[in-house]
């Protein structure tokens, strides 16, 4: 395990905290893109760059890294930015808590995930980064916080992506490598994100996004 991996994981946590503390959607999306970049770099950091030059799973790894890079760092942030511009929402409308409080909460979540991985989970194998699980867990929790606490659909989608990133990190940490299915999963996330984006656009056209998703208030529908 190289120092690089630890640094990258620390960076992931840092991005979590940043996303938690900013109210601007654009900044959040960019941070998300950065996190995607980091995630793409993670397999290289863990397995060493040598994996690119030899070994049986070269193609596999290259593809995974490229897919991750392309999707998480480029495509999705691009769509998100577009959706943001179309919906005309630039920042979290009237954040529920002050941003300081939000940052504090994210910090607590990060602390919590360190505690959980120290107390509840088995100790990491020798040689693997001790930061893997806490970082993944922290990302997951922050993502959940954003999804649950988000007041606009865009924030919720960003939260969901962060959450996905967390699962991704944990998966990598637990499984040590990318199995085929996880790659498929990554691709699927893209599909989900695209779907969400489509929905988001639909909302953008139909205004009043704040009332969205309130199922109980759905009027009794017509003939369907």
């Amino acid at each position: 395990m190289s120092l690089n991996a630890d640094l990258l994981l620390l960076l992931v946590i840092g991005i979590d905290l940043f996303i938690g503390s900013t109210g601007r959607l654009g900044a959040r999306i960019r941070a998300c893109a950065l996190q995607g970049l980091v995630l793409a770099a993670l397999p290289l950091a863990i397995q060493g760059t040598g994996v690119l030059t030899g070994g049986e799973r070269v193609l596999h790894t290259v593809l995974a890294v490229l897919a991750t890079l392309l999707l998480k760092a480029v495509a999705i942030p691009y769509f998100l930015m577009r959706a943001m511009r179309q919906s005309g929402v630039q920042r979290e409308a009237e954040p529920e808590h002050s941003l300081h409080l939000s940052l504090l909460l994210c910090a607590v979540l990060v602390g919590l995930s360190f505690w959980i991985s120290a107390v509840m989970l088995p100790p990491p194998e020798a040689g693997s980064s001790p930061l893997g699980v806490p970082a993944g867990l922290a990302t997951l929790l922050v993502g959940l916080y954003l999804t649950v606490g988000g007041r606009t659909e865009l924030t919720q989608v960003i939260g969901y992506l962060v959450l996905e990133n967390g699962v991704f990190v944990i998966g990598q940490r637990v499984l040590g490598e990318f199995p085929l299915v996880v790659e498929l999963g990554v691709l699927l996330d893209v599909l989900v994100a695209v779907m969400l984006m489509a929905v988001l656009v639909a909302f953008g056209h139909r205004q009043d996004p704040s009332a969205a998703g309130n199922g109980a208030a759905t009027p009794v529908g017509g003939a369907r």
Partner: protein
Amino acid sequence: MSLLLALLLVPVGCMLVAAVLPSPRAILALCVAGAVAVAGIAAVLIPSALEAPVFAIGRQLMLDALSAYNLAIVMFVFLFSSVYALRYFGPAARDGSFGRGKARRFGASWFGFLASMILVLVSNNVGLLWVAMETTTLASALLVCLEFDQPSVRASWTYLMICSVGIALALLGTFLLCGEARNVTTGSESPFLWTDLSHVASRMRPGGVKLAFLFLLVGYGTKAGLAPMHTWLPDAHSQAPTPVSAVLSGVLLNCALYSISRFLPVVEGATGGDGWAFRLLVPFGLVSIVVAAAFIAHEHDLKRLLAYCSVEHIGIIALGLGLGGTTAALFHTLNHSISKMVAFFCVGNLARDHGTRDTRAIGGLLKTSRLAGAGLLVAIFALVGMPPSSVFMSELWIARDGIAGGHLPAVVAFLLGVGVIFIVLLRPILGMAWAPAIAGRATVRARALDWPLIVLPLVLLGVLGLWMPEGLQDALTRAAAVLGGAP
């Protein structure tokens, strides 16, 4: 076995064809033809799968007794729903409101949905299972917002969001489980394959496996509609076009529950077989029943009523598994799928005939649209567990097995909950039957196609309530054997 692969590839092929066919009516016809074809393949495969598991692509795909049993239900419901789709969209296709774009979207998603459900059932790989599960969400979300109006998009959004988060938790659970398995697999054993997982289960650490199972339970439970993770369900099921609602309620929930139940033997193997995992299902089942009762009591939208009713029945199935009535729970799965499917068909016809789904605004159920009204009445009677429907039998069966397992309080709660639902669900339906027909509404004659769609499944329900075919009994026993049972 190449047939197993064909089972997957035929729907995929149909999906591609549907995406390019020019005429809406041709797409609808393709839906039926494709469903028949897939059902035919399944019919060939299932008997042999019941005897012994069938594998494909190097053990990545497997059809064993449990998945074959579920596959049979899926195909049954899907076939009927495809025919119903023909009936449902037919008029709109003729008058143009079901245009080419919509039809293509429907056809492609419809077969994508089928393919993903089949993949859920036939994957021997937990990761693949997860992927398939996620695909079902995607495909069905597209179907839910087929109309693309405000409520349906909203419902679709909720559905996607909740189920995606849920399924992310399931992915986490999968990772955790496979991580545990990876520590103990040796040689050619893969930590991702069911077949190997059950072998190495006894060597895994119970704590880790339990943690993984909690996430799997909540994750796939969200998709299955177990309360309190069911919140997306009433919206999605009520906003989807009726054929889609029938499949969503009738079989998609089963597939999700199937995913949970697949993990049960593994967890049991790892935790020493004291029924820990089974017991965990019991509170979910009970809470689902209670929550369904509470919401049915206040609901006026017919499709939402049925959606909550699905929450109840999924709860009953989970409860049945948890109380040790594995066979009964599997039987209940079949009964619920058939009856819920018919109920949705009838509601679809009624809503079209009356222009509304509000129970308070529909009157003269048995006069205005006789077949659909009577069908709905009978289907609801079946759903609430009135004999001689087979639902009564499976519920009685679950109660018996629960008592035999010594779970008296749970069985009492179960019976009481089902009793309350009986009342709150029947009340609006009977109200519609008794209320005078709305003035000026002409009697709508049922089409020829409606008769087999509504009558056949209902007759089947009655027959299964009074007669257990040898083959079905055998299939149930074999499928239950895959799961084992709570001690």
